[in-house]
């Protein structure tokens, strides 16, 4: 259990263990996976087939930009033909209709545009405490969305100076990026 991949799997397995155990018992004793709805008492058939989805996402077209994270840099794609900067990076420039991009390292400095605190979390983030997500406009004029590392979100304000950090996220142990006040 070195990274979030197995940690999250075990966490989610644990989350559903008790409710599924109940359904398992009911199915065993009554012969059917039918339980009363928790709010209304209506009979509910609990699906006996679980679907597990984990996508495998091709990144060949943006590999240099993803790989630059290992060098501690956040990179955009810059069209060699028209100079347009794309972040998130993409392989193709639809304006020029050519696929000739170069790595453009983004400035790590910028200003906070807006933010929120995620209090009610998605299932795959439920192992986290409340986290702050913001959008920062970098010096290049490019907006980047990421977590903001701050002890008290009440200190945040529009225009606040931010600095980008590229590193392994604590606990999850894979490289991503976040902002902290400059």
């Amino acid at each position, binding site marked *: 259990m070195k990274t979030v991949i197995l940690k999250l799997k075990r966490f989610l397995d644990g989350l559903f263990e008790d409710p599924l155990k109940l359904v398992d018992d009911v199915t065993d004793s009554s012969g059917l996976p039918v339980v009363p709805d928790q709010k209304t008492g209506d009979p*509910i058939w609990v699906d006996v087939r679980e679907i597990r989805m984990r996508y495998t996402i091709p990144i060949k077209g943006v590999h240099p930009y993803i790989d630059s994270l290992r060098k501690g840099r956040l990179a955009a794609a810059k069209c060699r033909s028209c100079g347009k900067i794309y972040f998130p990076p993409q392989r193709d420039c639809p304006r020029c209709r050519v696929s000739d991009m170069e790595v453009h390292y983004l400035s790590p400095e910028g200003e906070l545009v807006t933010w929120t605190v995620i209090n009610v979390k998605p299932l795959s983030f439920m192992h986290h405490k409340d986290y702050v997500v913001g959008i920062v406009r970098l010096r290049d004029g490019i907006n980047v969305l990421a977590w903001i590392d701050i002890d008290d979100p009440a200190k945040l304000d529009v225009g606040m100076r931010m600095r980008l950090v590229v590193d392994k996220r604590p606990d999850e142990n894979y490289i991503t990026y976040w902002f902290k006040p400059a």
Partner: protein
Amino acid sequence: MRRVAIVGVGISRYGYRSDSNLAELAWEAINEALNDAGAGVEDIDTYIVGNAGVWSSEPLPAVVIGEYAGLQPKNGIRVEAACATGLAATRTGYSLIASGEADVVLVVGVEKMNESTTPQVVELIGRAGNYFWEFENFGLTFPGYYAMYATAYMKRYGATEEDLCMVAVKNHHYASLNPKAHFQKRITVEECMSSRYVAWPIKLYDSSPITDGAAALILASEDVAGKFTDSPVWIKSWGYANGTSNLSRRSDFIGFESTVVASRMAYKRAGIDPDNPVKFFDVVTVHDAFTIAEIIGMGDLGLAKRGEEYKLVREEQTYIGGLIPVNVDGGLKGKGHPIGATGVGMIVDLVKQLQQRADKGRQAPISRGMALAHNVGGTGHYVFTAVLSVDKP
């Protein structure tokens, strides 16, 4: 292009519907729409199902509903545009008639969200935007996306959390007068203010609920509409636009460019003055997935001056009797937001408003004979606007 009339409308009870599966829920709305039109299944040429799905078990909802409703072997397909699925489906049905391909089309929007747990639904809606760049690493949620608009808007224009709550109070008020609505009780600003944060500064009472529900329309060409009714409501014009998938690619967070583009398209096609659209409508729906969405939506639609939308709310100008009645069916906030049904359900209520048969206590005065529906998918990712009229366009 042939003109298209709405000759029958139906809507299921919205809410936590553990008593019904997807097809049963759809039928509840279809049956009411057929009765309303005085039509039978045999009158339907083809049908469109608006369903976002994923949280519910049936991957082919159009086929399942077609079989259940006795429509087979008639053709029907699913249309999806996130939370704008309902108006997207209606637009597709409209196009089939306008083009001459069909005379009578059934449009049914339906969603069974409560087949999955709340954390699973939060996950699935949170992924709606750009999954790889904005969810995978950062775990955004649906209220989280809108909260970033709320933060920017409130900081820029001085709106408060109380102002947001006033939208919830209004929409709960009208929901309490709508027997089909998810929430049947009124709330106070104090109750809203003391509800917990789901994505600061958005609180639970600022948020539309996870809802099961269905709504249906019978659309007919101008050639056959008279067979069903003498007083149809006509679809006068459409507008539509998309936003970027990545929120980071947007320039500011005080409104949706997609709503501005979609509404101006619909206004132009309907001959409506884009600088003063309020003068043309008796009643409007503004997509209020969250209270902030109704506020910025009013500015985007040109119903209020940008930055002053919340003042209209403060002055209760969006109640019946005010400048422009907004979401008098309870809105997504009070009536509920069964994703695929929402836009269709807006049309159902606006048709009843224009025909002056809305529920007691929430009938807007009808003098101009026009209404506007505004349905947003995701966080401004898709927008559809429809202008309805009692007069044949």
